[in-house]
Every structure is written in structure tokens, then in C-alpha cells.
């Protein structure tokens, strides 16, 4: 089992869909919500994800396809 920490940003239509739940169920991933901020039009979730390496890749690819912005937590550090 692997662990990954990601920040998900939801906009527009993706805010309204239960995408995190769908990802967890479809790819057998356990999400642990560490921080969240949600407004009417946008949402930001910091998650620790636990699952098989391949499942994590597939799960995150699924979210990206649905329009969610997936970033490693550190953000851009290149300066």
C-alpha cells in the first residue's frame, strides 16, 4: 500500500459532483481529509490517500479527467 498527499481544487461543475467518493469507491482508495475549504463555486481539499500504487495513479487520473486540479501538496517550489 502506498500513501500520497495531494491538494484537489474543484471549480464550476466539478464542485457539485461527489468525485472524491467516486474515486475512493471505484479505485479502492482510502482518503483521509486533513484540510478543506469549500465555497459555492470552488472547493479545496487536502487529502492523504492510501491505496495500491496503480490504483492511486488511476484514481488521480480519473479526478483530472473530471476537471479537478490535482497537485502535490507542496505547491510550486521552483523559484
Amino acid at each position, binding site marked *: 500500500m502506498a500513501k500520497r*498527499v495531494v491538494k484537489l*481544487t474543484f*471549480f464550476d461543475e466539478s464542485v457539485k459532483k461527489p468525485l472524491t467518493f467516486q474515486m475512493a469507491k471505484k479505485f479502492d482508495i482510502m482518503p483521509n481529509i*486533513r*484540510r478543506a*475549504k469549500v*465555497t459555492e*463555486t*470552488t*472547493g*479545496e481539499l*487536502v487529502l*492523504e490517500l492510501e491505496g495500491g500504487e496503480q490504483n492511486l495513479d488511476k484514481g488521480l487520473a480519473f479526478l483530472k479527467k473530471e476537471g479537478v*486540479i490535482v*497537485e*502535490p*501538496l*507542496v*505547491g*510550486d*517550489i*521552483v*523559484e
Partner: protein
Amino acid sequence: MSYVRGLKCRECGREYPKEVLFVCEYCFGSLEVNYDYGRIKKDLTKEVILRRPKTMWRYKELLPLDNDPTVGLNSGFTPLIPANNLAKKLGVKELYIKDDSVNHPTLSFKDRVVSVAISKAREFGFDTVACASTGNLANSVSAQAASVGLKSYIFIPADLELGKVVASLIYSPCLVAVEGNYDEVNRLCSEIASKYKWAFVNINIRPYYAEGSKSMGYEIAEQLNWKLPLHIVVPSAGGSLITKIWKSFNELQKLGFVDSVPTKVYCAQGHGCSPIVTAIKEKTEIIKPVKPKTIAKSLAIGNPADGYYAIDTVRKSGGYGEEATDAEIVEAIKLLAKEEGIFTETAGGVTLAVAKRLIENKIIPKDESIVLCITGNGLKTQEAVIKALPKPLKIRPNLASFEEQIKNGTNQKIADDKVIEYYI
């Protein structure tokens, strides 16, 4: 003697010891240095500061080292220049340039943060330092590591301009050009940082590193005779500098060095990479990451790590955010050079172009004090302006030829497709 209490999560407030930590293990929020201001207030006075050498270390109680610094001993205390010619041009009454384009040793504000980061890394006992960078940070880490014989690993995207690469390579770091975009360099570096026991100045040393930026704010206050400007325009990439300048002003108030913090803080970004400014204008606190496309490469961070805090700073101060197009950036670089004799890099062009727009739009009033933060030197980004400059007059070596050319008037512009041919 240290005045640091420890580290504190910027999100949940949980406290940690002053160790090599950078994220909260509970909420994954970033950590910040927490000081014992009561003790600092007792020991640090204006008189003490005035007796010290004119470097950023005259405020050492407010920087996170346990002992005296061991690198960057001449960094900081760059000039704060009354920009009277430029003020006239922009129609404002009181304008100052904080000129970090002449910072020591590598001509950018990054010398401040790297001086703190590498001194701290040495206190922690590291023998190797590293960073992920697109230019100024790479130059400063390479130079300052070399000055104390530390090994350094510098990670850059493979498609960087030669000039930026040379200004790092000359100090003999291990320069690693990653075949990928900025995002991929980031991901790789966080992975490397978790495996190798190196001091990554902008990853695992980040809480300490970022504090170095505060020195710019202290200097501005001191150079204005312990009075804060009413407006300050700061270029933003990851958003750290703008939050630290704000922190420095508030610390000065806490310590009684200034009566109040009346300053409005403005965030300047390039059009094509303005996620912080966009969020400010759209009145949201959530940053939408972008793919950068601007000539201001030192500001080209699409997913700013401190974006939220930068927005918060601007809002709390009553400031605003604005962006500048590539053409405006080039014009502003030329304007600063022509009016004040200062050659800044693209980030400085962004700052001035944004200030110009904020003044024109009456967001910054014309009769109040304004400081522009010029963070880097134009010699590093010559390719950005070369096409906008005329060619020199070419004459035969005699007076007649000189006078004939002078009669013909000003220098002619070189055709875009001839620029490289002309200079190389």
C-alpha cells in the same frame, strides 16, 4: 542566542520544535517560525540596530538563527532610492525604489533568504544544500554554498536560458537540468528531498529560509526613518515575499518601532501567470493553478505555495493586485533605466508596470508615499529587452564621421531577425 520559540502551523496553530520540519503532520499546513517577541523587545532597540553594520543582520534577533550568521554576511541593506524623475513621469509626489538589484552576492533579493537558509542548514549540521529553481535562487544557493565549501545540487528545468545557467554553473554546483516542465521539477524535488538528507532550502528548510525576506521590510522602515510607506508594490511568484514584508511591518509595530501599519500592499504579477491577482480580483481565496506563459520567468509559478497567504495579506492591508503584459514589462524596464539609471530584470518590470497601472486607475493615490520593490538585476535577463533596444551608432574613427552620424539623430532599431546576428 536564539529568540526562536519553535515552529507553528500557519493553518491549525499546532506548535513544533525548531527542527528540520516544514509541514504540519496533522493538517499538512506549512510551518512558520514563532519568536519570543517579549524578549526581542527587551534586547532590540533602534540604538542597537544603528550601531551595527549596514547589512540585513542588523535585525538578527528577528531572523531564525541560533548563532551569528556564517554566510551572506554582506547581504541586504540595499539602497532605498527617492525616485524623483520617475515620480514626475508617473505624476506622483513621493516614490521610492527598494533596489535589491544590487544585493550581495548575486544581485537579487534571493540573497536574503539564502543567507538565512544556508546559515541555518549549517547550524543543523548539513554538508549539502539543494534547491529547485529557475534562476535567481539557483545563482544565490550556488554562490553562497561555494563561499563556505558546501556541496550543492541545483535543479532547473532543462529549457532554461543559457545566461541563467552560466550564472549558477560558474560557482561549480552540481547543476541538474531536468527534462520536464516546472511541475515535473517540483515533483521530483519533493521526492528527492524526502529521500536524501540534504538541506533543500525551499523545501525542508523553507520555514527558516522564508524569514530572510522580512529583512527587506525592516530596511524600508528604517530607511524611511521608522515610518512605513502608505503603499508598497511587491512582485509575487510563490507569494512568500509579500507575506513576509507584511509580517515584518507588523513585527515592527509589535516591538514599538513604528506606531501603526498604514501600508496598503499590492501584488504584481505578469499577465499569463497571475493566479494570485486573479483570485484577488475575483474575490475568492482559492487559487486556480495556471500554466505560466510570461517573459517574467522568475515570477512564473502557476501554483503558488503561499498564494492563499498572499491574498490574505493584500486583503488585510486594503491593497489590491494587478498584472502586466509582456510589452508593458519591457517598457517598464526601459522606463526605470531611463529615469532612474536602474537596470532591473523582468520581475522589476512587472512591479513598475503594475504600479503605473494602479496609479493611472487611481487605485494608488498620487499624493501618498509609494515604495516599489525591485527584486533582481537586468543583466540576468537581457534577452527580454534586447529586441526593444536600438543599435549603437557605428562610425569611422574620425571626427567628421562622428558629427555626420550625430546629425542623423538617434540610434536606429535593429530588425528583430537581425538581433542575434548583430550581437554575437
